[in-house]
């Protein structure tokens, strides 16, 4: 009997010891983060790496696995993983992806966690709108940056040109800035440059700013249905502007047909074009460019009303994350006031309204002032799945540039395509 008791006690102690060891050696929580912030490239990447390391130091039970990719890869990977009911804990997104991802049912609803966050009111409602679909919040709006007119102040001074305020001013300025410097019959410098590649990411954003400034919007709800919030005439006036600058004023480089930002930004940097629509991240290039001190910013010229693209980037949590609470804690820490200002660096502007009170905030009239000033005119992309329809903007622009359609035909075609897309892909759900 005693022997049996001794064996039982020994076994019990051994189990207790094993349990204790198990508790002591509990595996740390691994949070996977998918984003685009590469610490080996200039800009915010280093800042993110620094903050991720700091968070792990403050939270020894958390291990961060940081997967870096380009925006294209990020979107594809999120979609494919989502279909396999998988995904990262933290997912970085462009604002316009949120409605698509919500419709794919791959994002966690963070409404309760966000609304109960003490910092909730520190973000403007317009930024929460981008992170929300159908009244539910799916992430933290981590940056809020507008698009402005980026121009060469030295060339403006050389030709005695005032900063343009309207489309008419812009056309006149672009025409004046277009010059045959070598007097050999070939134009060397052009007034303006746009993105127009079929697959351009920035092209539709430039187009959107022009469309909004006609007083229109992309979509609106009418009797429970989504319909275009612009007329064919308003779209026509946008295509007319592009066509006039290319074929009437000759103030766009003829070779710029098909440009994406990879061609446009170097063209601005080398002086081939004197104006473009761009964002705050160009401050990094300005610091490296020999003529960077001459790069200045102004609100983008408008047609009927001042308008710009309020680009909000969002960090969300995958619906399939098994550590959603820890992922939300990470987001709240990363985007507390001082951390957000530190992370925004020179790439984008922080979305918090209390950013200027942070000790990390460095005032800058060119690369921050103009952008903050234009937030009030900011528009977001439609909060419905609209990505496929944005491609139509560039398809029709190419039709105009290759003279296969007149601006009026392109405007009507764009209207028809958007109507058809809304009926077939949005209203029939």
């Amino acid at each position, binding site marked *: 009997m005693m022997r049996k008791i001794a064996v039982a006690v020994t076994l019990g102690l051994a189990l207790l010891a094993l349990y204790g060891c198990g508790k002591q050696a509990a595996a740390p929580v691994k949070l996977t983060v998918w984003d685009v912030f590469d610490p080996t490239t200039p800009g915010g990447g280093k800042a993110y790496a620094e903050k991720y390391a700091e968070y792990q130091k403050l939270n020894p039970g958390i291990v961060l696995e940081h997967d870096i990719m380009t925006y294209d890869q990020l*979107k*594809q990977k999120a*979609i494919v993983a*989502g*279909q396999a009911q998988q995904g990262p804990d933290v997912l970085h997104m462009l604002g316009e992806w949120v409605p*698509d991802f919500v*419709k*794919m*049912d791959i994002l966690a609803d963070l409404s309760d966690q966000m609304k109960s966050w003490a910092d909730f009111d520190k973000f403007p409602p317009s930024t929460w709108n981008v992170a929300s679909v159908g009244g539910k919040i799916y992430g933290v709006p981590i940056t809020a940056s507008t698009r402005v007119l980026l121009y060469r102040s030295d060339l403006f001074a050389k030709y005695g040109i005032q900063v343009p305020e309207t489309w008419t001013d812009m056309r006149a300025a672009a025409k004046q800035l277009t010059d045959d410097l070598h007097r050999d019959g070939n134009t060397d410098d052009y007034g303006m440059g746009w993105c127009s*590649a*079929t*697959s351009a990411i920035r092209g539709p954003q430039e187009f959107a700013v022009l469309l909004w400034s006609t007083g229109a919007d992309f979509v609106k709800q009418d009797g429970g249905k989504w319909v275009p919030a612009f007329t064919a005439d308003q779209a026509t006036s946008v295509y007319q502007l592009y066509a006039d600058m290319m074929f009437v004023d000759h103030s766009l*480089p*003829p*070779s710029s*047909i*098909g440009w994406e930002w*990879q*061609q446009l930004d*170097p*063209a601005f940097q*080398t002086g*081939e074009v004197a104006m473009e629509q761009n964002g705050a991240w160009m401050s990094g290039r300005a610091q490296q460019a020999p003529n960077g001190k001459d790069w200045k910013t102004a609100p983008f010229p408008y047609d009927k009303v001042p308008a710009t693209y309020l680009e909000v980037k969002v960090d969300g949590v995958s619906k399939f994350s098994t550590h959603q609470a820890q992922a939300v804690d990470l987001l709240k820490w990363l985007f507390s006031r001082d951390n957000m200002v530190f992370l925004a660096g020179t790439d984008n502007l922080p979305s918090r309204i209390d950013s200027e009170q942070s000790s990390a905030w460095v005032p800058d009239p060119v690369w921050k002032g103009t952008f903050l000033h234009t937030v009030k005119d900011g528009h977001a992309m439609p909060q419905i*799945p609209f*990505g*496929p329809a944005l*491609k139509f903007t560039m398809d029709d622009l*190419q*039709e105009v540039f*290759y003279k*296969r359609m007149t601006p009026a035909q392109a405007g009507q075609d764009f209207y028809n395509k958007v109507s058809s897309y809304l009926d077939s*892909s949005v209203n029939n*759900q």
Partner: protein
Amino acid sequence: MMKRDGTSYLYFLPLALFIALIYLYPFASAVSLSLHDVNYLEPGRHRFVGLGNFLRLLGDPLFVPATEHSVVFTVGSVVFEYLVGLSSALVLNSPFVGLKNVSKALVLLPWAVPIAINSLIWQFMLSPDFGFIDQFLSLIGFRSLSEATWLTNLSLVMPTVIAVNVWRSFPFYTIVLTAGLATIPRELYEAAEVDGAARFSRFWHVTLPGIRRVSAVIVTFHVIWTFTNFDVIYLLTDGGPLHASEVLPTVLYHQAFVQFDMGYASSIGVFLLGVLSLTAGPLYSRLNR
């Protein structure tokens, strides 16, 4: 003699399972998707449509031009890759060329560079105004040619992407054909020479038949790889401008990752497989006859 029993097949089982997992399952899944209406934007939408996606493909306004471009891209690339590859292999095989290993390594460089980097370098080199190609043409006096917009001109874009693809792929032909040339017995050339065969005659009657089998393999593989090639055109033009360089793989990509229409995209993939199954086998048999 070893006794054949059922247990010997068990040794193949892990390999068979592995192949089934990485090849047959995705293949069956793609075929199944092609018969369904599946759009990732609508997780609940998953209904059987039979051949509906294939009928939709035949009626797609992009189908005919994209198929034509795919054929032009494949034939243009493979023909020029073979010609350039064979020419460089003959040069490398020549007794007058020294430092053979170094020369082979240099020829291999375009093939060794990752496709993405290769395409991006070419994109910059072909940039109008400040790209290397236009600058070089201007420097040597071809000012009018230097104003060409290689990747945005509707007539020039397809020859340009073919040229970039040829530049990227020809080294593979060079290396394989060099190996093929080395297997031709020297006695055949000596006998032909004794018979009074001229240089071209020796090439036609000895060299070409000697590399026929290796040529059949490499051409067949490259027809398959080029017809399904996506990366070069996607990175250089994304099928533009105005679909002038659109090929079936780029249409597939846009349907899958821009429109998220996976059922339709899969039907394009299955169509590509069908076309290649019907053409690549007979092509190989014909070349290898």
